[in-house]
C-alpha cells in the first residue's frame, strides 16, 4: 500500500478576478522509503498540492480530490483536530525560507520542545534530552548551548537544520521538503541535501522533494513528477527522465539548462514547447 496516494487533486482559489485553478487534476503516489521529486517552475502548483495534502491552505482555497489517503487514512473531510494529530507527527514539512519559518520571539529549543510536548507528551527532562539528540542528528555543533539561541542569531543553514530537526522529531513516515535549499548557498545546500538523504535512508522515510532545480533532482530523487501550470506533464523514474524524457515540456526544461547548452544561444521553452497545457 502506498504511503500517500492522491488522485485528481484540484485546488481553486477565490481571487478578485474570479476563481483561479492552481492545481488541475494532479495524481501522485509515494511509497514508504521512496524519494519523489516534484519539479516545476513557479506557478506549476507544486507547493500548493502538498500544502493541500497537509491542510495548510487558507480559507480562500477550495480543495477537491477523488482520493487523498495517507497511511490508510482518508485526508479528505478529516476534521481539523484529527488532522492535527497527523501533521507534524507522521507527516511533516519543511519550507523554503528557514529563518522566516521559525518564530522569531522564541528560542529554537522552545520551538522544538513544543513539538515534542504536543505530539509525544514527553516531560521536561525527556524533551530536553531528545532535543539535544535531534540537534546532534542534524549536525548542529554545541547542541545544548544552541537550544537557548534565537533564530536571528543563527545562519540560514543552521536554521534549516533546526527546521529539519523539528520535522523529524516524531519520526515521521513522510517528510515533504518544499524547496529546502533554494535560499541557501551552494556549499550549504550540499550539506543540507546530504543530511536529508542520510536521514531518509536511516529512518526509511518517504521524502517528497519539491524543487525547480534539475541538479537537485538528479542528486536526490528516485522518481520524478514534472508539473506545469497545475498539471502533471510527466512521471518517470529519475534515470529515464533524464535519458529519454517523453513530455515536450520535460525535454524543453532539460534543454534550457545552461550546462546542456550547445552553441551560444540557449533554446528557450517557447521555442521547443508549443501547446503549453492548452
Amino acid at each position, binding site marked *: 500500500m502506498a504511503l500517500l496516494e492522491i488522485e485528481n487533486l484540484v485546488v481553486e*482559489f*477565490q*481571487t*478578485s*478576478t474570479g476563481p483561479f485553478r492552481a492545481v488541475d487534476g494532479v495524481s501522485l503516489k509515494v511509497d514508504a522509503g521512496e524519494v519523489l521529486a516534484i519539479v516545476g517552475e513557479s506557478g506549476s502548483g507544486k507547493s500548493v498540492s502538498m500544502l493541500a495534502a497537509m491542510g495548510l491552505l*487558507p480559507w*480562500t482555497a477550495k480543495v477537491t480530490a477523488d482520493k487523498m489517503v495517507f497511511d490508510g487514512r482518508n485526508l479528505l473531510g478529516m476534521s481539523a483536530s484529527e488532522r492535527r494529530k497527523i501533521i507534524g507527527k507522521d507527516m511533516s514539512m519543511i519550507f523554503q525560507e528557514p529563518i522566516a519559518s521559525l518564530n522569531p520571539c522564541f528560542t529554537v529549543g522552545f520551538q522544538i520542545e513544543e513539538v515534542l510536548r504536543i505530539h509525544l507528551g514527553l516531560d521536561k527532562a525527556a524533551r530536553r534530552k531528545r532535543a539535544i539528540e535531534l540537534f546532534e542528528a542534524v549536525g548542529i555543533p554545541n547542541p545544548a548551548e544552541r537550544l537557548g539561541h534565537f533564530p536571528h542569531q543563527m545562519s540560514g543553514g543552521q536554521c534549516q537544520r533546526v527546521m529539519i530537526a523539528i520535522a523529524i522529531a516524531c519520526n515521521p513516515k513522510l517528510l515533504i521538503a518544499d524547496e529546502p535549499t533554494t535560499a541557501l548557498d551552494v556549499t550549504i545546500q550540499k550539506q543540507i541535501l546530504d543530511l536529508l538523504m542520510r536521514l531518509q535512508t536511516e529512518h526509511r522515510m518517504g521524502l517528497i522533494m519539491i524543487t525547480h532545480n534539475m541538479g537537485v533532482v538528479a542528486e536526490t530523487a528516485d522518481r520524478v513528477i514534472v508539473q506545469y501550470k497545475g498539471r502533471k506533464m510527466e512521471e518517470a523514474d529519475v534515470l529515464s527522465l533524464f535519458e529519454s524524457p517523453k513530455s515536450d515540456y520535460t525535454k524543453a526544461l532539460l534543454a534550457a539548462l545552461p550546462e546542456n547548452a550547445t552553441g551560444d544561444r540557449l533554446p*528557450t521553452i*517557447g521555442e521547443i514547447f508549443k501547446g503549453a497545457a492548452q
Partner: protein
Amino acid sequence: MSVITTKSTQPSGLSEFWYYFSRNKGAVIGLGVFLLVLLTAIFAPLIAPHDPIVPYEGMQRLPPAWSEKGNPMFLLGTDAVGRDMLSRLIFGTRFSLFIGLVVASLSAIAGVLLGLLAGYFRGRVDTFIMRVMDIILAFPSLLLALVLVAVLGPGLVNAMIAISIVNQPHFVRLTRAAVIGEREKEYVVASRVAGAGTFRLMFKTILPNCLAPLIVQATLAFSAAILDAAALGFLGQGAQPPTPEWGTMLADSREFLQSNPWLVTFPGLCILVTVLAINLMGDGLRDALDPKLKRS
C-alpha cells in the same frame, strides 16, 4: 525575438481596491453615512428649513415636533435663543467637514514634510525633529491645543491651527518609518545610479510609495479633528457663538442638560455618527490598502 504577453484580465487599481474595501460591511456603511453628511453640507442652504443664525421671538427652547409642546415648524425644536435646531445641525455639517479637511490637510502636509526630512537625512536632522515631536506628544493633546488657543486667541481658525500642530507628530512618525523602510530598496538605488538628486529621490521616488498608511492616517485625523474642534468649542475656545458648530452648540446648551435634554442630545449624536462613520471608513481603507492582507 518571441513576443510576450501580459495578463489581459488585470483589474484596474480602483476595481481591485473596491473588491477588498467592500468586503468590510462596516466600512461600506461608514462610507455611505459620510457621503450623506457630505451631500448635506453641500446642499445645506437648500435642505435647511430655516436660517441657522436668525432667532425666532418667543420660540426659545421648544421641544422636538413629536412631543406635546412641539411646533411642527421646528422639527427638532429650538435652542436657548430660539434658533431652529435642525437647520443649525445641517449647517453644522459644513463646519465639521471644513474643520476636518483643513486640519487633516495641514497636519498631513507639515507632518509628511518633516517626516520625509527626518527619514531621508537621518543623523542630527532626524534626532532634532523627532525630539520636538516627542515633546509635542508628551502633552495631553487637548491641553496643548487649549494652551495654543489661549496664546492665539479663541476662534475657529486658531482652533484649527492649534489642532493641526497637535496632530502632526503622528504623520511625522508614520512618514519617517515608511521612508526609512523604502530608502534602502533597490528601485531607489537604481534611481540614484541613474543620477537622481536628493529632491527628486525624496519627492518623486520615495514619497509616492509611502502613501498608503498616510491616507489611512489622514482619514483618522479627519475624525479626530472634528472631535477636537467640538471639544474646544465645548470649552468655549473654538468656534464662537452664533456659529452653528456642533461643539459650540453643546457648550451653549450645557446648562439645560436636565431641563431640555434634546438641546444636548442632537448635536452630540451628530458628532458621534459622523466620527464613527469616518473611523469605520478608515478601518476599511487600511484593510484594503495593506498589501500584506491581500488574500490572493
